[in-house]
């Protein structure tokens, strides 16, 4: 997951996200925002999963499955690029 593109996204605490590259804006819930901020900080998928497991009392498998879906959505919106 590339974090350089993520770094330029502007986010506020209400979950409003602005992509200055494309001009598109998005809204996210609290969990989504937490993941985006973690990606901005360059955290790995495993680190994000550990963080979510601690916060939400869910299993690693549940989180990994949800996170994979979330990453697919971010890729579809061209907000992240998978490392080649």
């Amino acid at each position, binding site marked *: 997951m590339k974090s350089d593109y993520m770094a*330029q996204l502007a986010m506020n605490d209400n979950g409003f996200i602005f992509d*200055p*590259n494309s001009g598109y804006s998005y809204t996210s819930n609290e969990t989504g925002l937490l993941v985006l901020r973690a990606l901005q900080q360059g955290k790995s998928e495993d680190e994000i999963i550990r963080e979510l497991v601690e916060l939400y009392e869910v299993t690693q498998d549940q989180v990994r499955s949800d996170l994979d879906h979330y990453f697919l959505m971010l890729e579809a919106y061209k907000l992240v690029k998978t490392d080649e």
Partner: protein
Amino acid sequence: MNNPDLSGLDITIAVTGLKTGDNPQPGVPVIRSIRAAGFTGKIIGLVYDSMESGIYVDGLVDEVYQMPYPSAGAEAFMSRMHYITEKSHIDVIIPTLDAEVILYIRLQEELQALGIKTFLPTESCFLLRDKTKLASFFPPKGIAVPETDLVSDVTQVISSREQFPLMIKGRYYEAFKANTVDEGIKYFYDIQSRWGLPIILQKLVPGDEYNIVIVGSGDGGILGMVAQKKLVITDKGKGFGGVVVKNAELEEFARKVIGILKWQGPCELEVMRGYDGVYYLIEINPRFPAWVRLAEGAGQNQPAAVVRRALGLEQEPLPEPKSGTMFIRHAEDVIADISTMGEVSARSELIRR
């Protein structure tokens, strides 16, 4: 890099295109940006009819003069300029309407003789950005332009049946998306009746549209550049809201276009980033757009920079614009006495202070 400070200038600046409303002209925002740069001198509004709304806005223009339409020709234009400058000396003019810019370019020497300065492109440069030339001039230079055909007969629209949807454009103004050949025929006749021939058929490029306001330095460089993505689009296709974007690829594309033309003065590029990842040049408008205040709001006072360059003053490149700055157009009723309109209608001029 600082924004221009016009507070010390004791000159008179004339600006055209004071109509706002559903198809707003750029004159009012250009004046507002000039005032925002601290300019306290006289501003003259040059109008074509007495219903241009900027005439009636308190504190906007100090004097108003009605001009002959560009189609009346150079003689009528210069005759009016002589009359106006006998009453009020003009130092700088910023024309803001497509149809009149060529007149100001061709008459630069005559205007200069009256002491009037402009900051405009050369005539050959201006003609290269004509909608009918874009598709032949730019692609060999590495700038993609959507496939374009110039047609002068409706049968050519019909024979393009397989290529719809297409954009149908007038040479000077108006563009419609025609989904079917029947719509194409309707728009062909609509545009022909208003703007004449040829009509431009352009392949529709699916993607994201960006508009870029630029002041070219004339040597291939850029004094200022602000790109926006439209957020609100009216049924006439006008952007009534937008947000400043910061996109290195888009900026590089725009710099290349301006570098090829060596454009001098203000212009607006319409660019499409296709879903194929290719940037396409759609149009080059030879003047500030009506949304130019967004540039000032984002930290680049481009109209003020044009005033300085017209006067022959040094102007370093403007500061980087702040991405995420947005505008939304707000319509408001202006209250005035009918005598104001009477004065412009009857005397073709109005002295407000």
